[in-house]
């Protein structure tokens, strides 16, 4: 699938293919022309992807080929055992988790999971967890705490599921409890927003010592579409809303609401999944090393202080 802003690049790439074919089938010397075009493509790509608007990044974060939580987990772990269920109601397919090893260190890995085709998307409820998803996540975090294993969460959700049963089973309470419990987990917690970070549904597993965003992910209190609907009673202003919300990794970092950004390959995470996974793995290992060196009580204190410092008021 091509996004609008990718089309000029794709056109040039098609032209390059043509040129290469011509070069193969004739004696014409087009080497220099090919080189020039390749350079032009590289430049255009760089310019395009370094200057994406908020809305363009939102589109990339939802790209149908974008890697999801389990893609990364399987890519970065040597072994992974998925664990299921909240021990109360059921097993939420939109929230996955389990124990995995990365370079010999065992982690508890948890995240929202989206599906890749229609059937899977339904199975995963489009990455929108029910309360049991948040309770399963908390259960696994407690388990990690018991066995003193660091926790990594992957955030990728259009929001917590706004359904009838979700309300009956206390969606609000489930998220709220996670917020309060995650701030005082005794083990290191690393949270990575890999795609969409929509509102409380994202925050419900995003309270960590380090909260990091992939370069083309977004994180805010509401999606641009819903923001547009509320403010202008129409989806048509989503681009504008995406700018207003300051939802990109860069904006969130400058507002001090996240701790860092993980670079994506030019063109987005989906263009080079292995590279992206390697980058995430490297970040996890480095961050764990740094966090593990701290005293647990000090880690918790800093975690609480960090979140309590967020916000801007006038007095």
């Amino acid at each position, binding site marked *: 699938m091509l996004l609008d802003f990718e089309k000029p690049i794709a056109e040039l790439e098609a032209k390059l293919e043509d040129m290469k074919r011509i070069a193969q089938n004739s004696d014409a010397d087009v080497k220099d022309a090919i080189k020039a075009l390749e350079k032009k493509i590289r430049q255009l790509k760089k310019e395009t992807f370094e200057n994406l608007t908020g809305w363009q990044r939102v589109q990339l974060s939802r790209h149908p080929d974008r890697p999801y939580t389990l893609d990364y987990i399987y890519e970065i772990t040597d072994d992974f055992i998925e664990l299921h269920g909240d021990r109360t109601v059921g097993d939420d397919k939109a929230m996955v988790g389990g124990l995995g090893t990365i370079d010999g260190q065992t982690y508890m890995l948890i995240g929202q999971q989206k599906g890749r085709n229609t059937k899977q998307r339904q199975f995963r409820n489009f990455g929108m967890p029910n309360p049991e998803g948040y309770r399963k996540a908390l259960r696994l975090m407690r388990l990690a705490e018991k066995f003193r294993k660091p926790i990594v969460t992957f955030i990728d959700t259009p929001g917590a599921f706004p359904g009838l049963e979700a309300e009956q089973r206390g969606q609000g309470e489930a998220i709220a409890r996670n*917020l309060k419990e995650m701030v005082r987990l005794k083990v290191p917690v690393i949270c990575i927003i890999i795609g969409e970070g929509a509102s409380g549904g994202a925050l419900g597993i995003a309270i960590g010592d380090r909260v990091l965003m992939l370069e083309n992910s977004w994180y805010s*209190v509401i999606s641009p579409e819903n923001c547009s609907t509320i403010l202008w009673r129409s989806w048509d202003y989503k681009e504008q809303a995406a700018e207003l919300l300051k939802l990109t990794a860069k904006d969130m970092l400058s507002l001090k609401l996240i701790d860092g950004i993980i670079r994506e390959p030019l063109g987005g995470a989906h263009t080079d999944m292995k590279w992206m996974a390697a980058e995430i793995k490297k970040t996890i290992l480095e961050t764990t090393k740094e966090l593990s060196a701290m005293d647990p009580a000090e880690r918790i204190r800093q975690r609480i202080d960090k979140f309590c410092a967020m916000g801007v008021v006038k007095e």
Partner: protein
Amino acid sequence: MAWFRRSDKGILTPTESKREVPDGLWFKSPGGKIVHTRELKHNAFVVPDEDYHVRIGSKEYFELLFDHNEFKELDPDMESADPLNFTDTKPYLERIRESQEKTELKDAIRTAVGKLNGIDIVIGCMDFSFIGGSMGSVVGEKISRAIDHCLKHRIPLLLISRSGGARMMEAGLSLMQMAKTSAKLALLDEAGIPYISLLTDPTTGGVTASFAMLGDFNIAEPGALIGFAGPRVIRETIGKDLPKGFQSAEFVLDHGFLDFIVDRRNLKNRLTVLLKMLA
């Protein structure tokens, strides 16, 4: 012919009482009952016979709960900044200013310390009339500091929620107020200080998904709408009408997320009994 010319403006309702309380002399309840506003006030703003709880704000709750309406307001001058430079149909700061003029409030919550039947208590009460009781940095910070006050002086906390959720105009900053208030409540836990959360009509969104649901005791007023997602959103998601009483306080109690429902006329008394048991 001077007898009809009014010499003073005494019977005009002052702006101050126009907050959430009914303005004018008479109040018509959703059930159709007409009540004199003074009678309503004497009845804790509950419509007699119907038990309908009229939406009221921090001024009325403070008067209902603090002994002799005496209290010291915490951070009374804190106001919203506009860190995101947010302008939709109008600039955010203009929206704030208009709400401030209309409601004579600074933002969507007031926090205060005083005595409730002689018991020291910090009460934070949201005002729905201020941009839908939405939580931005001010609401989060005021709650956070109110909790600091509780921790420092070892006194219990009551938060009265009435809110549409997080404030969109502060986007990511609003979202993080959920984390901030919840983090501070964790400290109250560790210190063994009681926190009572009173949910009133309506309490939804990011407020439900943070401090409102985290009380040692979650209590609610009768008939209050309490939920995470709003009814309209859920209706659109499931594509059918919602069952009667869905997301009412009674429904939420029935599903295990409230300790009890309390009639506003008994609120002060019930809080006193509860707090005494914990002392």
